[in-house]
């Protein structure tokens, strides 16, 4: 420690100490001369050696290298600008992608101790749900000592605010929600556990900043006003802040205390029903407690709960704890998607680095003179290599600074356009900066090492290195273009292919009877009445019932293993006329008879997979008490997994106990729009307190497809950027080669060679890199795109049309970038070239 201190002292006082040493040596020289010895060595050299003893030589060399690198880069502005731009794009794309991932999964919510917030979900070896029953929530809250605070969030269908046509989104929360998150009200006050916990308190509501601006005109006097939700009066007590940080990224317009839920939604049994999983549970770990310890305590509590109330707990159930202090609670498949995106962005980095590497190799030829001199004067290979690496590092640093700026700007644009929680900002945090630095080092290694080796060794193998770089760029670009082509095809497919059910003319009407306290019989009556009234409407062709509506809020699936393959199966419970109403063809067998139990109808794909070559009718599914017999086969209809062509469906008949959860499906003869309004007017006549959610499937479908359109557009953009970089690199490279071989070309043409012969002589060296690059790219794309299948809307991930399109486009662009400069060469003035020597 003391040594370091002395060394730093030396560094600071260098000049003075060096002159003192010089003084000492002069004295020594004098004394030696007096004694007759005149062989005191070179004082400067000796001082250098003395300086080296302090171990700071590397600093000096670094400063030298840097200043030299700066001069070199400034002296070649075209090269520097080009290289920095290309690096900025390559690194920038990666930084942007990581920033997005950081915002979603890594950045903690801006609330106190966000790392202690956890999400609790029910899990068992066979089942999984992200919600639990409210009484179970209360049970865990009272008994768990490892969870210091527990919050519940209950999502409900949008509610009717005063006399608005459109319903407003709302969410019920426990009164400690805002307190735990440390939220400060923008106006008025937020929920308080002491005042808003009792169910007999006056009904209160908190407005979100957005709805306060839009609907209430930013009027501060709204606090204290009474508004009506679903016809019931509630008092506005406050407004949430603009940059509200909520759990799970939810942004409802209205916040309500959970105790009020039965008052606002008539006959709701959510708060007392033990078997109905409806609230999302979050908690805060007690100080010093690990998630594992909490999970163990919860495990024993779950067993205790099973003893007291067996209907509330599954067999083998346990509570799973995941970190909850981020924008999104990550599921395993989300990590897979992130990995896929990461690979794609790395590809454009490969193109950038290979490109810059090629640029540096080209410059190496121009710098041979300079480097030759340096070697002749006595520069060691290692010193030379270090200096060239410093140049590359400087270039990399410039590129990444530009990349940060670029990605910041792009993210800001994206965040403004999309509807995201307002506490997110495009400013890079330490994670993003660290990532950028890591990327810079990786990129510099990739593009800087190879040329530096080449240059320092002065070997003439540049042609091979160049070819490798070209091949790498072609390969990476081809993967990006192929993936982009696949996604574009998927978009086309989604828009113009029948998903198996006629979504254009369907409306789903969800009365949410289960939340309103309807039992099986009353629900059946309501639904029957609703169906008959709807059937009388002129434009209604058919009405049916389904438990999990197409493109609905709730999705249920299970992974089954069929002959060694894992496939995702989507179960559903429907009325007998469901398939006719949906326009789904019945391929084999028949539909359900009324009240039929233990009968299942499967989709074609499932029948094909499970019983290949056999007659699926009469086969059994499931075991023990769950056994069902196949009575029919329908066409595929991926109602809740539109993009996943590998999904299969299974349908059972809706039983009486399912009635409170059923949703109406209406098929219209023409445009479905008019039916929505008519259905809305029918509902109050049946039950004033029920406000069904009416959705047009056409619009939902478009939304779903819009997502993949956006993704396809982004990937296409990145792919085209990569190809442009590669193409520009090729243009430069070919022009460079031609300049080098101008004389040879002129001689050939003077001797009568045909233009094509000359061109092929010059460009022949590219045929192997092109071929290898295309093949490598295709193979990589073929293997990598397996993970994309689930998002391709039925397009095969080996779809030949997409591969052909991507590769042909690439070949065209490559050919153009090679032929253009070459063609210019053919118009050379031969005479002047041959004379010029």
């Amino acid at each position, binding site marked *: 420690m*003391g*040594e370091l201190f*002395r*060394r730093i002292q*030396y560094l600071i006082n260098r000049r003075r100490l060096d002159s*003192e*040493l010089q*003084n*000492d*040596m002069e*004295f*020594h020289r*004098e*004394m*030696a001369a007096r004694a007759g010895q005149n062989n*005191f*060595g070179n004082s400067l*050299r*000796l001082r250098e*050696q*003395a*300086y*080296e*003893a*302090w*171990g700071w*030589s590397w600093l000096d060399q670094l400063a030298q290298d840097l200043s030299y690198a700066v001069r070199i880069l400034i002296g070649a502005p075209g090269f520097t600008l080009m290289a920095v731009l290309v690096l900025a794009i390559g690194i920038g794309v990666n930084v942007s992608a990581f920033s997005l991932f950081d915002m979603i999964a890594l950045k903690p919510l801006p609330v106190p101790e966000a790392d202690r917030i956890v999400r609790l979900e029910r899990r068992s070896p066979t089942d999984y749900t992200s919600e639990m029953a409210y009484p179970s929530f209360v049970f865990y809250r009272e008994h768990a000592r490892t969870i210091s605070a527990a919050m519940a969030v209950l999502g409900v269908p949008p509610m009717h605010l005063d006399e608005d046509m459109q319903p407003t989104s709302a969410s019920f929360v426990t009164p400690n929600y805002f307190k735990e998150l440390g939220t400060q009200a923008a106006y008025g006050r937020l929920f308080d556990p002491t005042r808003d916990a009792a169910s007999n308190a006056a009904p209160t509501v908190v407005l979100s900043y957005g709805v306060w601006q839009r609907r209430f005109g930013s009027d501060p006097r709204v606090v204290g006003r009474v508004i009506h939700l679903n016809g019931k009066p509630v008092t506005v007590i406050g407004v949430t802040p603009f940059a509200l940080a909520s759990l799970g990224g939810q942004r409802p317009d209205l916040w309500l205390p959970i105790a009020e839920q039965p008052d606002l939604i008539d006959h709701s049994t959510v708060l007392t029903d033990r078997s109905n999983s409806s609230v999302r549970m979050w908690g805060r770990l007690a100080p010093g407690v690990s998630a594992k310890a909490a999970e163990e305590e919860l495990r024993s509590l779950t067993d205790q709960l099973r003893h007291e109330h067996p209907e509330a707990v599954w067999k083998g159930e346990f509570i799973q704890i995941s970190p909850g202090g981020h924008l999104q609670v990550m599921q395993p498949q989300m990590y897979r998607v992130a990995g896929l995106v990461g690979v794609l962005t790395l590809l454009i980095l490969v193109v950038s680095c290979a490109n810059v590497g090629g640029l540096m190799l080209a410059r190496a030829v121009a710098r041979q003179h300079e480097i030759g001199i340096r070697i002749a004067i006595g520069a060691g290979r290692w010193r030379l290599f270090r200096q060239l690496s410093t140049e590359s590092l400087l270039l990399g640093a410039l590129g990444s600074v530009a990349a940060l700026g670029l990605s910041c700007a792009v993210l800001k644009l994206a965040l403004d356009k999309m509807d995201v929680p307002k506490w997110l900002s495009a400013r890079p945090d330490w994670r993003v900066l660290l990532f950028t630095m890591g990327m810079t080092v990786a990129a510099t290694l990739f593009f800087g090492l190879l040329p530096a080796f080449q240059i320092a060794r002065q070997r003439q193998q540049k042609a091979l290195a160049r070819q490798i770089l070209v091949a790498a760029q072609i390969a990476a670009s081809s993967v990006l273009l192929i993936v982009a082509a696949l996604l574009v095809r998927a978009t086309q497919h989604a828009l113009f292919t029948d998903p198996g059910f006629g979504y254009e003319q369907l409306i789903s009407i969800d009365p949410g009877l289960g939340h309103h306290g309807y039992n099986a019989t009353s629900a059946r009556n309501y639904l029957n009445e609703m169906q008959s009234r709807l059937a009388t409407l002129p434009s209604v062709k058919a009405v049916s019932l389904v438990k999990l509506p197409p493109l609905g809020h709730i999705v249920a699936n299970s992974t089954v293993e069929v002959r060694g393959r894992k496939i995702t199966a989507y179960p559903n419970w429907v009325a007998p006329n469901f398939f006719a109403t949906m326009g789904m063809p019945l391929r084999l067998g028949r539909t359900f008879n009324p009240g039929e139990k233990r009968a299942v109808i499967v989709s074609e794909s499932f029948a094909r997979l499970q019983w290949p070559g056999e007659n699926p009718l009469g086969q059994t599914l499931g075991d023990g008490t769950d056994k069902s017999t196949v009575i029919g086969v329908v066409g595929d209809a991926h109602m809740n997994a539109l993009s996943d062509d590998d999904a299969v469906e299974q349908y059972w008949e809706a039983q009486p106990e399912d009635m409170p959860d059923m949703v109406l499906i209406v098929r219209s003869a023409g445009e479905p729009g008019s039916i929505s309004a008519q259905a809305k007017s029918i509902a109050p006549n049946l039950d004033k307190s029920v406000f069904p959610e009416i959705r047009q499937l056409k619009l939902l479908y478009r939304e779903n497809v819009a997502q993949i359109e956006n993704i396809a557009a982004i990937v296409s953009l990145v792919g085209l950027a990569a190809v442009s970089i590669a193409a520009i690199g090729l243009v430069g490279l070919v022009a460079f080669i031609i300049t080098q071989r101008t004389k040879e070309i002129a001689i050939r043409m003077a001797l009568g060679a045909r233009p094509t012969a000359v061109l092929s002589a010059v460009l022949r060296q590219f045929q192997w890199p092109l071929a290898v690059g295309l093949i490598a790219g295709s193979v990589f794309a073929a293997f990598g795109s397996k993970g994309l299948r689930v998002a391709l809307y039925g397009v095969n991930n080996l779809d030949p049309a997409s591969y052909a399109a991507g590769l042909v486009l690439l070949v065209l662009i490559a050919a153009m970038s090679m032929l253009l400069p070459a063609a210019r060469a053919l118009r050379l003035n031969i005479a002047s070239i041959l004379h010029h020597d």
Partner: protein
Amino acid sequence: MPMVDMPDPLSPAGALPMLILRILQSGPLHGYALAQRIHLLSSEVLAVEEGFLYPTLQKLLRKGWVEAEWGISETNRKVRFCRQTPRGKTQLKHELSSYGRITQAIQEVLRTA
């Protein structure tokens, strides 16, 4: 030739730090006097070149075994003197003992082999 670490303490080159520290034990000296002293005391067998002396002195300064102070030479000129520090004293003890051990071991082998 850049010097980072000393060669082994048995060769005269590697023993230089030990020699310097020993000589400085009786009082501070400047560079020329050190070289003279070593030359004289070794009966003119060892002649320290300035190209080796000064970098060694720098190393001793860096390690804190020696510190520099200003003084007046015999010729009335201001020059820096090197003085042994307490840490240098400890280091000298270590080096002497390890040197003694190795020398003894070598002599034993030569004697009894």
